[in-house]
């Protein structure tokens, strides 16, 4: 340790000397924490107490939370979005010993951002029928300083894959009366009897279930899941897949395929989100 200190001092001196001589040195500069620029900050990490399905009205929501970030379907659908930086570092170029302020000299950003999305659906009378708070944490490095936001969910156009997903959500029937839907994934393919079949995969706060049209659904309770992992499907190499290992040693695979030609990389995003959702479920982190 004592031998390392002089070496660090020499390195620091060399970097400073290089910077002050006009050389370019790359250094980490902390990014401010808190609400991201241009985003609202009033979406909390828990469902607001006044939001009660079957009781709260659209007017009450508006007066309490303000105008939504997204609205659709004749105002029967609202979404409130928020993004908070939990931690972050800019890797910037230093020239002449001082940071270059031009954004072009932010070489890259490493940060952890928490995205919150409160989705509210109302009936024709303006009474809340479904409230969902989705929180995602995004960690990683990206080049440049361009903001990175998750693709927001938008209300679907009829006939689209998104419309199918929303219909799947609406048609979710809890097997257990206590089931509360957390996420639904369309065009997941579940391997049930050796063959891949198009399906809808649900993650509730109790279990993972897969519904294949014309087939009995399978369901795995959270307590029965021993592990969840990426599982490349040998017979479907273009489909990212996730394997659920049950405690009794049996397995269930869920694969994801692009929904259409313009959707090439979404299969990976959905698979990653599914994997993360199941991990949260197994870890007992899903709030009931």
């Amino acid at each position, binding site marked *: 340790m004592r031998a390392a200190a002089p070496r660090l001092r020499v390195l620091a001196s060399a970097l400073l000397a290089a910077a002050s001589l006009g050389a370019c040195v790359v250094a980490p500069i902390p990014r401010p924490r808190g609400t991201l620029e241009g985003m609202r900050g009033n979406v909390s990490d828990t469902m607001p107490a006044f939001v009660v399905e079957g009781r709260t009205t659209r007017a009450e929501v508006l007066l309490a939370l*303000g*105008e939504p970030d997204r609205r659709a379907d004749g105002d029967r659908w609202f979404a409130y979005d928020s993004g908070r930086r939990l931690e972050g570092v800019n890797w910037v170029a230093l020239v002449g010993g001082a940071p270059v302020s031009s954004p072009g000299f932010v070489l890259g950003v490493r940060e952890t951002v928490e995205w919150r999305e409160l989705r509210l659906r109302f009936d024709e009378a303006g009474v809340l029928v479904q409230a969902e708070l989705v929180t995602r944490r995004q960690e990683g490095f990206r080049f440049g300083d361009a903001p990175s936001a998750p693709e927001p969910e938008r209300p679907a156009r009829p006939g689209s894959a998104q419309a199918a997903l929303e219909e799947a959500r609406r048609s979710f029937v809890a097997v257990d009366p206590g089931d509360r839907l957390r996420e639904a994934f369309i065009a997941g393919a579940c391997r049930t009897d050796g063959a891949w079949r198009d399906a809808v995969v649900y993650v509730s706060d109790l279990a993972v279930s897969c519904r294949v049209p014309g087939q009995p659904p399978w369901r795995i309770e959270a307590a029965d899941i021993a592990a969840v992992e990426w599982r490349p499907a040998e017979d479907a190499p273009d489909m990212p897949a996730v394997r659920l290992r049950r405690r009794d040693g049996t397995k269930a695979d869920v694969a994801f395929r692009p929904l259409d030609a313009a959707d090439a990389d979404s299969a990976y995003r959905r698979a990653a989100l599914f994997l993360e959702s199941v991990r949260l479920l197994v870890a007992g982190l899903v709030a009931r």
Partner: protein
Amino acid sequence: MLAATVVVLFACASPPLGRADLLDFLQLGTTRRTDVQLRLGEPNASFEGERILAYRLGRDDGGYMLVKGGAGWSRVRFNLMLAFDELGVLQRYTLVEIETR
């Protein structure tokens, strides 16, 4: 030299744009939607057949100021939400704090 410095300092210090009395005219049961639109202009958004209007506000040392247009919530500190009855009379309003750093 001193005078020049003072001039430069005053030039840099912009006066507050906000108005402390911007919202003083709002009276429940009295103020009409047309009064609001005459004073504050077109709302940023309206809901439920214009029974609910939304305005975006910033705030500085002088008070509140209207923030018009633009995407996102930059410079917006509050959402003024106004609810009117079927006759267009103000029944309720809230000042929702959008920015909670």
